[in-house]
């Protein structure tokens, strides 16, 4: 092939790839049946390898810790995580209840069950790179999982479902730079948008915080639910730093998520919401 022909071929290839990249962008509606089948087959392999990997990790780390102490600590830390999640949720309901009581003279009382219908799923795979943050879970359309369903753990918000096959689903984590969650500062009800920063770094930032709303480190951020696909009132994280954004019109805050995204093993997918009766 002459160098002219080769260059022509390369340019055509480049244009084609750039076009396909756009067409297969994040927002495309449906994967092809072949893709879905191959993903399901690969998912079985992923499940086995993930299990083996975790098994090996457990074997390697086992002698390094005192057996009972380690187990007990793990149980306690799970318990603390669960209770923390419940506490945040309870606080959210209490505040909501107080507001409603004050405004509409509704009866006060303990918050009823959260009214969320959830399905548990195991994490079987992750995005192979360092830029995006997605996980693959072992439940799909056959188990009632659909696009845009909210995914969480007892600690807080994880992300949302962006693609499904019959037996797997891909979840976009809130730390992904493509993710944006409509949020509120829990106690002051200050609105904002929580975005992922970069890849797997696991940090978040809350942007578009109005200038006149006081916000400070230590405050808890929850999902707002307003015009959002995320269920309302799920804890997201804690504000660690607040500064003025480059335009000077808003504040932006660094948010440390409650969920440890590097140690996600099981998640819950919200498949239905039944708001508690008031």
């Amino acid at each position, binding site marked *: 092939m002459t160098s002219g022909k080769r260059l022509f071929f390369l340019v055509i290839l*480049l244009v084609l*790839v*750039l076009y*396909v*990249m*756009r*067409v*297969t*962008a*994040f927002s*495309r509606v449906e*994967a092809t049946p072949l*893709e879905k089948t*191959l*993903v399901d087959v*690969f998912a079985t*392999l*992923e499940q086995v*390898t*993930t299990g*083996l*990997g*975790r098994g*090996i*990790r457990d074997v390697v780390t086992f002698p390094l810790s005192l057996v009972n102490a380690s187990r007990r600590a793990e149980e306690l830390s799970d318990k603390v995580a669960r209770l923390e999640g419940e506490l945040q949720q309870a606080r959210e309901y209490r505040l909501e209840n107080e507001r409603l009581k004050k405004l509409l003279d509704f009866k006060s009382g303990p918050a009823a069950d959260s009214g969320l219908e959830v399905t548990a799923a195991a994490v*079987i*795979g*992750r*995005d*192979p*790179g*360092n*830029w*995006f943050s*997605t996980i*693959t879970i072992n439940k799909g359309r056959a188990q009632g999982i659909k696009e845009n369903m909210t995914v969480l753990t007892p600690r807080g918000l994880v992300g949302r479902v962006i*693609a499904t096959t019959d037996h797997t689903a*891909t979840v976009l984590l809130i730390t992904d*730079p*493509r993710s944006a969650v409509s949020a509120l500062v829990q106690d002051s009800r200050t609105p904002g948008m929580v975005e992922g*920063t*970069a*890849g*797997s*770094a*696991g940090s978040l930032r809350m942007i578009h915080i109005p200038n006149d709303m006081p916000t400070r480190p230590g405050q808890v951020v929850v999902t707002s639910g307003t015009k959002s696909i995320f269920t309302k009132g799920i804890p997201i994280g804690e504000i660690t730093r607040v500064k003025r954004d480059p335009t000077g019109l808003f504040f932006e805050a660094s948010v440390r998520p409650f969920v440890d*995204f*590097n140690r996600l093993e099981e998640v819950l997918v919200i498949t239905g919401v039944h708001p508690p009766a008031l």
Partner: protein
Amino acid sequence: MLGLLVLPGFLLLALLLQVTVVDLIHVKGVVPDLTFLLVVFYAFLRGQREGAFWGFVAGLMKDFITGNYFGLNALSTAVAGYLVGWSETRFYKDSSLVVMVLTFFATMVSQLIYYLLLVYLQIKIPPGVALVGVVLPSAMYNALLVPLFYRKFYRLYLKGWFKVGQF
């Protein structure tokens, strides 16, 4: 004929490990890229054409697993394979140190191209965060893993494992 399947087989295995267990060895959220290491090793031993080709194939496999932006990894890895392939006739093959340096720079270039393609796809990541949070650490992590794998790969290559897999 079997040799034709060795490199794709290795790439598939590396990809499987990449999406399942590699996350267990993350450092500050950054993981090494096993398929990329294979491409660098093969390109260093086989030259530009094969480096670019197998870089493209390996990247496409990764794009497929990601499920979006087909060509994003393919392009960035193909360029890295091509550049590493340039060094095929210029350096001694049995030095892990040389491959470490090559891997570091190849990852940097590949990740910077990836970043530019993200800009093209209108995915906003501040340049400072991209450089300090992803590009540099992943280049360092990939380079640090070279001594663990390169000599073994080179030995298999000398034994003729990849012989029929010529492009």
